[in-house]
């Protein structure tokens, strides 16, 4: 029988002393925690919070960058910059492009990375080689990969030479209907290795006994995949979807490099590329700031909706 007497638990009179020691210990731990956390808090303040607040301020003023020591009025303009953003047809096109990108990229990323992760989780030959091969594009510089894709999908590229008279005209990267889907495919391929790794990690937590039980119940490989693997990695799917949305909505390098600055005729312009063109190239940081704020809102809404959707039924 378990002894629950005061003696066994320790003398009652000893409690305040131990509580004081615990409190002191807790405070020391809390200070140590504060010390360890402070660099990141500082990082967040300097790199994220202050610029975000400054961006909000710029977005409601008529503002441009000037040389130091010169006083230039930055009058309050209310929502005027936002009105300019919402009435600019190129902005509309940029968000439409991102919509096209996400519709192609996100489902494809989830599907391919999950299937590949499941395959690479099984005992297959050359497993280590395949894991490294899928990860390689992710750690390779975009500039180098873009050169490869231009070689493949240029007007005189490898793919068009194979297709011959069936090649699209204008070619892939300068075709207003194909430019954005090509970017979506490029990004999917480039980032696949990272998402495969996420799923591989998640798959380690799916118990073998679940597969054995399903097998005993007569489930084949496909049935096991949909009934065990897919529900088993649902939290990872939420992470993959949200991460893919955030990186996709912040697309810059690919339209900048692969389609020559968002061409043809803005068919692959992204909001971030537009922010760069308006804010840096054309000297309208106020417009770019308003567009940035709109983009943050857009990403938040889409990410929250995706989270609700992927976590439904949990």
């Amino acid at each position, binding site marked *: 029988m378990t002894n629950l007497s005061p003696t066994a638990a320790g003398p009652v009179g000893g409690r305040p002393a131990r509580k004081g020691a615990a409190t002191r210990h807790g405070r020391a731990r809390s*200070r140590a925690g504060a010390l360890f956390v402070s660099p990141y808090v500082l990082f967040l303040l*300097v790199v994220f919070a202050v610029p975000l607040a400054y961006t909000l301020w710029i977005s409601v003023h008529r503002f441009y960058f*000037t040389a130091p020591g010169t006083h230039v009025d930055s009058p309050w303009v209310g929502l005027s910059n936002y009105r300019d953003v919402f009435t600019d047809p190129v902005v509309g096109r940029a968000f439409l492009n991102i919509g096209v990108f996400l519709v192609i990229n996100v489902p494809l990323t989830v599907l391919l990375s999950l299937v590949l992760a499941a395959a690479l989780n099984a005992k297959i030959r050359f497993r280590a080689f395949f894991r490294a091969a899928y990860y390689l594009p992710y750690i390779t510089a975009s500039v180098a990969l873009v050169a490869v894709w231009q070689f493949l999908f240029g007007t005189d590229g490898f793919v068009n030479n194979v297709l011959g008279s069936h090649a699209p005209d*204008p070619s892939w990267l300068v075709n207003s209907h194909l430019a954005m889907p090509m970017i979506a495919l490029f990004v999917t391929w480039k980032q696949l290795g990272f998402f495969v790794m996420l799923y591989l990690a998640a798959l380690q937590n799916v118990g073998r006994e679940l597969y054995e039980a399903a097998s005993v119940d007569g489930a084949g490989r496909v049935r096991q995949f949909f009934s065990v693997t897919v529900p088993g990695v649902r939290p990872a799917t939420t992470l993959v979807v949200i991460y893919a949305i955030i990186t996709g909505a912040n697309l810059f390098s690919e339209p900048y490099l692969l389609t*020559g600055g*968002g061409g043809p005729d*803005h068919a692959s312009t992204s909001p971030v590329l537009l922010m760069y063109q308006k804010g840096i190239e*054309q*000297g309208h940081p106020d417009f770019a700031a308003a567009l940035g704020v709109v983009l943050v809102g857009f990403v938040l809404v889409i990410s929250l909706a995706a989270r609700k959707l992927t976590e439904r039924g949990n």
Partner: protein
Amino acid sequence: MLRRTAYALLVLALAGTATACGRSAPDPEAAATARGPITVWLSNNAQEVAWGEKMIAAWNKSHPGEHVKAQQIPAGKTSEEAISASIIAGTSACLVFNTAPASVPTFEKQNGLVPLSEFPDGDAYIQERGGALTDQYRSPDGKFYQLPWKSNPVMILYNKKIFEKAGLDPEHPRLATYDQFLETSRTLVRSGAAKAAIWPAPSSEFFQSWFDFYPAFAAESGGRQLVEDGKPQFDSPAGRRAAAFWRTLYAEKLAPQELYPGDALNDGKAAMATVGPWAVSAYKDSVDIGVVPVPTSTGKPPEDTYSFGDEKSAAMFSACRNRATAWDLLKFATSAQQDGEFLDETGQMPMREDLTARYPAFFTKNPLYKTFARQAERIVEVPNVPGSVDIWQAFRDAWTKSVVFGDESTDTALRKASDKITKLLDEYGDPA
């Protein structure tokens, strides 16, 4: 103790950040007469750097108390972006010998430039050196914020070997009229001698129109700028003819719609290119080149043909603390002797009147440059108006949509671009 350390670290970091972000500017009145060491930026063109280093060595030898240091313009997508960033940070050099006139209005708006007209001999020196051509470089307030330094008048360079391969006469190419140019282009491409007749960048950066539409428009219109007297000029018969000419080149696939990842003329992929005299030395070891004026619908004689000047100015920046030294160096670097040495080293044309008479030995020795020197007497520059970059971007958007990709008729696109640019000019004229 730990908490105090954490607070101290936080305060130190914030103070460091604030100091790093702190910006100061020289007092303009004191700086105007101050003398002392300065820094100048040169472009990264190898020949220009070689000239610049020699010029500065000569200056430093005779001015030991006013030492000048030369650097190349910091790397960026374009020099203009790097210069703009340096203005904002207050770190620009005193002088930049590669300032694009199209960016001058932006730099002015940023209060990044020193008005050269405010030096006692400022206007007189600039006008005496450059003659009548300098008027295009005055800002709307009547002041010079740039010294027109050198031009690279755009002409048609062609690869003689490719012409020969296509069965064309490389010494007398038929490229004067639009019809001749198109016929020659068809022969070049259909014979398989070259992948493209001509391959300008079809991409949508605002400055790309300076190397396709603008030279053609300058030639066809007899020397009109894109905007004159506050009004766009290109929605005109001359503008429409130039646009239709280029549309035919793209529609018949004589000019590709895709950006070439390199130098198409140098690689033998294109038979022709629209470039300035800098290209002569760049291609001398790889391509046997010939040069002709930009075509016009009627084939104007070379002595009546205008083109885009692709001029680059020298400008003084407001971060400069020793402006008297900078102004003296600017005059030294653009003196008749240094201009001659610049011409000799780079083949680019100093913005001086009567170049061929002033430097006869050079042009006798280098006859190909003489054609460019004559063209330099009839050049058109980008208009010096507020919102210049926005205006060129609006034009470029219309150009890629209609001329490059044929998604809209060229006449409609020019009309819409003209309306949009008129609105932009109104907005910049009345920013409220």
